[in-house]
């Protein structure tokens, strides 16, 4: 009987964990190696599926926010949501499947703790989720909406762009939906293909009135998410899904804020400025090491953190110092956010530039499945672009 119950429970947990099982393979990303075993029958080597294209580097334990706890990125998100619901009695969390804990476990335990009127499922309808969230925010209550994958945010595009972003402006500040935050898993994950890998920040960067934020780590995620929730403007918070389990570090248990619209120089350097956000920050960090080791080149690494409104001053200040800029993102090259950065920097820092600004991005294709290793702007492509810039 006990075995039965255990097995049933196991099945339920597995179902609940759903997507999780696949992420187990990514644990300790960077430590896996491709195992290539020659298969004499076919001539094609049998490949162990997936090796991560990045190595997550935790930041040193933060000292100034009190007691910390080891958390991965989804746990850091849960912690932020927990803090929010604890201190703001109007705050509610809603979306598809958030009640049982969410397909990425970001809302585990919250419904039990705060009640079914505060953490609840909605019907399967993104335009409804965001529209509903706007309405809650219009009354002044705090609305935290979850879109299950950033790839599915598009039905809500009208509500976000035509409504949320313009609410305050069009009403002459009579009404606003500033207490709305939309969260969505974002970016490549190894096998997500067209509809579980997208990075749609560029679509929203073109929309005055909203803020768009992408964290690189659990500590950043919690602080930035709390800032988004407390910010008096509607915010979109993209969570790099491949980091949900792969990124682990010490994160403060209590509430803390990381300011929006402030980029972070995570490594100082003198020869080249590298800019990225989300998962890609870890790629360019590694590129910086490679550049130092192989070329003796000193890189300044910047995590942009907020895409809109973005921190022009920090990036320009860096480029004025180094004279070279490389921007990298998974999203396709044309019209990607690197174009905006590149355009602004050449306007502001033209005479400081020693080489054309380099963009290392995804190709102008939908995000492919089996070809992902070739599609992504990995460290070799970034390194190669950097080398060309140095030799320009």
């Amino acid at each position: 009987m006990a075995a039965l119950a255990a097995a049933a429970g196991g099945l339920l947990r597995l179902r609940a964990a759903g997507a999780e099982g696949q992420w187990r393979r990514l644990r300790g990303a960077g430590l896996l190696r491709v195992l290539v075993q020659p298969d004499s029958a076919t001539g094609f080597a049998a490949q162990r599926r997936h090796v991560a294209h990045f190595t997550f580097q935790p930041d040193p334990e933060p000292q100034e926010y009190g007691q910390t706890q080891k958390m991965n990125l989804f746990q850091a998100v849960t912690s932020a949501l927990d803090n929010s619901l604890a201190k703001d009695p109007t705050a509610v969390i809603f979306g598809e499947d958030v009640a049982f804990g969410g397909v990425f476990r970001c809302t585990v335990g919250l419904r039990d703790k705060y009640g079914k009127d505060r953490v609840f499922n909605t019907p399967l309808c993104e335009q409804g989720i965001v529209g509903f969230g706007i309405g809650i925010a219009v009354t002044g209550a705090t609305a935290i909406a979850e879109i299950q994958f950033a790839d599915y945010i598009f039905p809500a595009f009208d509500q976000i762009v035509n409504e949320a972003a313009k609410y305050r402006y069009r009403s002459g500040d009579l009404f606003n939906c500033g207490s709305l935050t939309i969260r969505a898993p974002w970016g490549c994950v190894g096998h997500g293909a067209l509809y579980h890998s997208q990075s749609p920040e560029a679509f929203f960067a073109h929309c005055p009135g909203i803020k768009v934020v992408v964290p690189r780590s659990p500590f950043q995620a919690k602080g930035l998410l709390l800032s988004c929730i407390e910010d008096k403007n509607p915010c979109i918070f993209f969570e790099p899904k491949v980091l949900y389990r792969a990124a682990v570090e010490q994160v403060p248990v209590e509430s803390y804020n990381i300011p929006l619209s402030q980029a972070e120089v995570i490594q100082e350097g003198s020869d080249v400025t590298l800019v990225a956000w989300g998962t890609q920050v870890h790629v360019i960090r590694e590129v910086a090491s490679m550049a130092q080791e192989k070329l003796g080149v000193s890189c300044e690494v910047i995590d942009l953190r907020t895409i809109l409104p973005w921190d022009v001053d920090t990036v320009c200040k860096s480029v004025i110092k180094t004279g070279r800029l490389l921007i990298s993102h998974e999203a396709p090259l044309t019209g990607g956010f690197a174009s905006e950065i590149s355009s602004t920097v050449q306007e502001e820092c033209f005479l400081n530039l020693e080489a054309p600004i380099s963009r290392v991005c995804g190709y102008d294709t939908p995000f492919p499945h089996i070809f992902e290793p070739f599609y992504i702007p990995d460290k070799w492509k970034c390194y190669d672009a950097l080398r060309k810039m140095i030799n320009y």
Partner: protein
Amino acid sequence: MAVAVAVAVAAAAARVWGSSRGLGQAGLLLRRSAARGLARSLPQRQEQQHFPSLDDKPQFPGASAEFIDKLEFIQPNVISGIPVYRVMDRQGQIINPSEDPHLPQEKVLKLYRSMTLLNTMDRILYESQRQGRISFYMTNYGEEGTHVGSAAALDNTDLVFGQYREAGVLMYRDYPLELFMAQCYGNVSDLGKGRQMPVHYGCRERHFVTISSPLATQIPQAVGAAYAAKRANANRVVICYFGEGAASEGDAHAGFNFAATLECPIIFFCRNNGYAISTPTSEQYRGDGIGRGPGYGILSIRVDGNDVFAVYNATKEARRRAVAENQPFLIEAMTYRIGHHSTSDDSSAYRSVDEVNYWDKQDHPISRLRHYLQSRGWWDDEQEKAWRKQSRKKVMEAFEQAERKPKPSPSLLFSDVYQEMPAQLRKQQEALARHLQTYGEHYPLDHFEK
């Protein structure tokens, strides 16, 4: 061991998936393991989950209903359809005295004055667009009853989400003519700071959320606001107006479904006025109007929108129950759009003048209420004449004043995008200021405040 696990898995599957054939699955697993030479004897039967009379009722999580063994498609009942509730006949006579809301004289006069003042304002502002004084206008001709009948049944603090043809709700809530005009002229008195096209009114004080042009976007928003009101125990209903055309939008479907599943105190008020610009209802939907509420699990009613008392009664009862029971209500108010869609439309291109005249002359909410008032001795031709003159004078005065006022400072182009102005935007604001210093003569600066 493997067999015990197989049985356990099957039983677990049975519980999770609700199937009564768990053992059948176990049997299958056993046969497979037998094939691999792992056959064991079957352990004792695990306990069957208790389902009451499995053969009699469907057990599907999605719907339970009853079984039927005859193949039959449900016929959508469009011919007879949902009946139209009314209180007055077309001559303003109460049909069933028990349905008369017995509103006090003052209140009925307020209904009448709101409708007629709106009508007068519509005529003058429509003309002003024709003369190039304002850029755009939308009239409310024929639908005044839907506005005031519903507004009168609400509390003043009930939150209103509208589409764009509900100015009578604001009129009933005593929104001053000066502010209607200010918004249409985009002058310095406009609370909206001149940002939107005419008729995109909003008023925080009167709980009327600012209108936006995209259709039906307000519907799921209204539902969210209702949910928040429920959580706050605010004893407040949210009313959401939209036309029968907007009801075709995905946002409408989203809103209805969310309101029902999340149990929100909201009144969905559909003004079915026969046209979405040029598109008649026969091309807008094929079901029974917006009586699709029951499909979502929403209590619904169809009313004569040109009968202010029918609108009032339905809204009043819907409000009472929505707040008491935390569930949505759908009111489909049948009416007719007598005017053009807007000043950019000439409806003679798609409908006959006779059709329009019928509604204007034979079934108009204002005349029906006037007949009611007159039959009660609460109104007469003298008062009608005096009121027409007075309301026209009020409107003309507000109109002339609105015209004379300057527009807001161009610096207001840049504020309220965010609560705080981002650095990049401030740079752009400064760039415009510098540009105007050099090229100001090419811009209509004389009409704007500094």
